């Protein structure tokens, strides 16, 4: 019986079947993984490109980054302060959600993009203080519409940079590779 199966598999049709099977498993797995790597749908297709193009600094909208753990999402008031004066806001289809949200007083449900797992305690401030630029982690925002992550924030990536920054400074290295620096 076993022999029959093997024999059948050895003929061209069988080989093709085996090939198709593995290919389909592989592609399904690939698809599954790729879905986790895509930028999520946002309530407003926010064009970072345009805003950066106007010369607006990152810290203008995300001021928390230089002061504490979270960079923060700007409040609607901040959006409105400028958009209020822009004629296009009243007419543009894309800006309708913003207009509606401000007028109705409901908040916009942004989907966080640059997140680390719950067990990682990340703080923006020391990174900015150490001279890191936003784009080193978040990519060049002048090129994208909706924010997306150029890389997965995983521990190897963090450590890589930490080690490079510590260099030969033992004390710094101790601090920057200590488990308790990020995990508690």
């Amino acid at each position, binding site marked *: *019986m*076993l*022999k029959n199966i093997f024999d059948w598999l050895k003929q061209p049709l069988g080989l093709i079947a085996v090939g198709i099977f593995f290919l389909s498993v592989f592609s399904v797995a690939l698809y599954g993984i790729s879905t986790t790597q895509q930028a999520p749908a946002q309530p407003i297709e926010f064009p970072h490109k345009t805003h950066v193009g106007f010369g607006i600094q990152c810290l203008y909208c995300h001021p928390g980054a230089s002061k504490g753990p979270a960079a923060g999402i700007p409040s609607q008031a901040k959006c409105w302060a400028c958009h209020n004066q822009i004629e296009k806001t009243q007419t543009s289809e894309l800006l309708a959600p913003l207009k509606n949200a401000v007028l109705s007083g409901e908040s916009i449900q942004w989907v966080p993009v640059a997140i680390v797992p719950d067990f990682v305690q990340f703080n923006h401030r020391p990174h900015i203080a150490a001279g890191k630029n936003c784009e080193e982690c978040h990519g060049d925002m002048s090129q994208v519409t909706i924010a997306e992550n150029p890389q997965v924030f*995983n*521990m*190897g*990536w963090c*450590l890589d940079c930490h080690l490079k920054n510590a260099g030969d400074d033992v004390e710094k290295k101790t601090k920057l590779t200590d488990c308790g620096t990020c995990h508690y």
Partner: protein
Amino acid sequence: MTATAKPYSKSAKTHDAHHEDEHDMKQYLMYDPKPRGEMNRMVMESMTTTSWKFWVVFAILGVLVATCFVYAWGYLIAEGLGVAGVNRPSYWGIFLVNTVFWIGISHAGTFISAILRVFKAEFRRPFTRAAELMTTFGLIQAGASIFMHLGRVWLSYWLLPIPNQRMLWPNFHSPLMWDLLAITTYILSSTIYLFMPLIPDLAMARDRSTGWRKTFFKILALGFRGTEGEWRHLTTAMNIFAFAIIPVMFSVHTIVSWDFAMAMRPGWSSSVFGPYFVLGALHSGMGAVAIVLFIMRLTMKHMDYFIRKEHFDALGKLMLIVTFAYTYFFFNDYILQWYGGDKWTDALLHWLEEGPMSWMFYQLILFNLVIPAFTLWNKKIRQTPWLLALIGFIINIGMYWERYLIVPVMLTINRAPFTWKLYQPNIEIFLTIGTFATFLFFYMLASRLIPLIPVWEVEEGQMTHSLRKVGKAELPTISEFE
């Protein structure tokens, strides 16, 4: 040789009484040879003759494996260890009891096949395979028990030294890490050591079977044809392994004992734990071999030819010796701890003597020391298979109690008396049944799939042994092949 002198009559009388027994050398397997083909046929028949009773038991065990092992473990993983009885301070519970118990069981196989092979103890020949199977299957249960007790078993691969982007390695200071390495080594080496002597028998079976069995044996026999060169390679490899596996065997249980002995706990941090655990393992392992031999002889065809009273007798003697060695270490451990006079150890000993689990402590002494030490002297008992199996069973209960006392009961007492709580097993009971069922399930499966008697070893033995007539007496002689 003229050994006919009769010094005095009393002795001669006893001699006469046992005359028949002692001189009927046919009772010994080695001196009761059968033709090669006949013996092969018998072994093949024992493998293929399956009664409906077998399937009933097999089905029951299958159900137990599915429910108590697979389902219960899945439930444990899904719900967390809260469904088990582990608590503070008995963080380990029955899981580790089972681990130590199964590793103990697994020791008998290696001991019988490797040590007795090295020392050329001839009685070992027919049941080396049965004992080695116990090693492999026992180790599987031991490993499973360890993984069962992990809080997050799906991450257990972190115990392996796999290079990773986190630059994290396992902690080689941890006895659990040593444990993992030792058990992995042991399970690999014992499986190889099980497999090598199996090759000639598989080849034999390949030549004598048809259908799917033939394919199965063909794959497993690795094309063994029995040429001189193949035999030479095989025996050389087996000899190397027989020597190499002995230190592995001793080290494994020593290392398992270090899980406890290295810990900073009263009752556990004892330097004698290494040999004590090894002896304990042999104690339970020998008992388990006795049970298995009894069941094989009872249920499988032709087994009364291969497994004889002489084997039970020899096994009984071995058990007796192990009993005494074990007794020494038992008292060594407890008396030294008592003599130490540490406040917490004192509390622990009181807990063992007077606590609610003290019955276990006294049964342990009775089952492990008293009963075997006072019964195995008797040749009649040794030669009665069911009695020896019963004693083996009692020893195994005693040894289970011993591990139970060492893990959850001793864990109750620590240096923080505010936390002392009793341990009440919960789902562990099912998982324990599950490991036993899985062990037996594998064993029964193996009994249908591979020859449980190493025919070539028996044949080899019979060929080297012969009876030679010297005067009126038939005397056994042994010739060496090599």
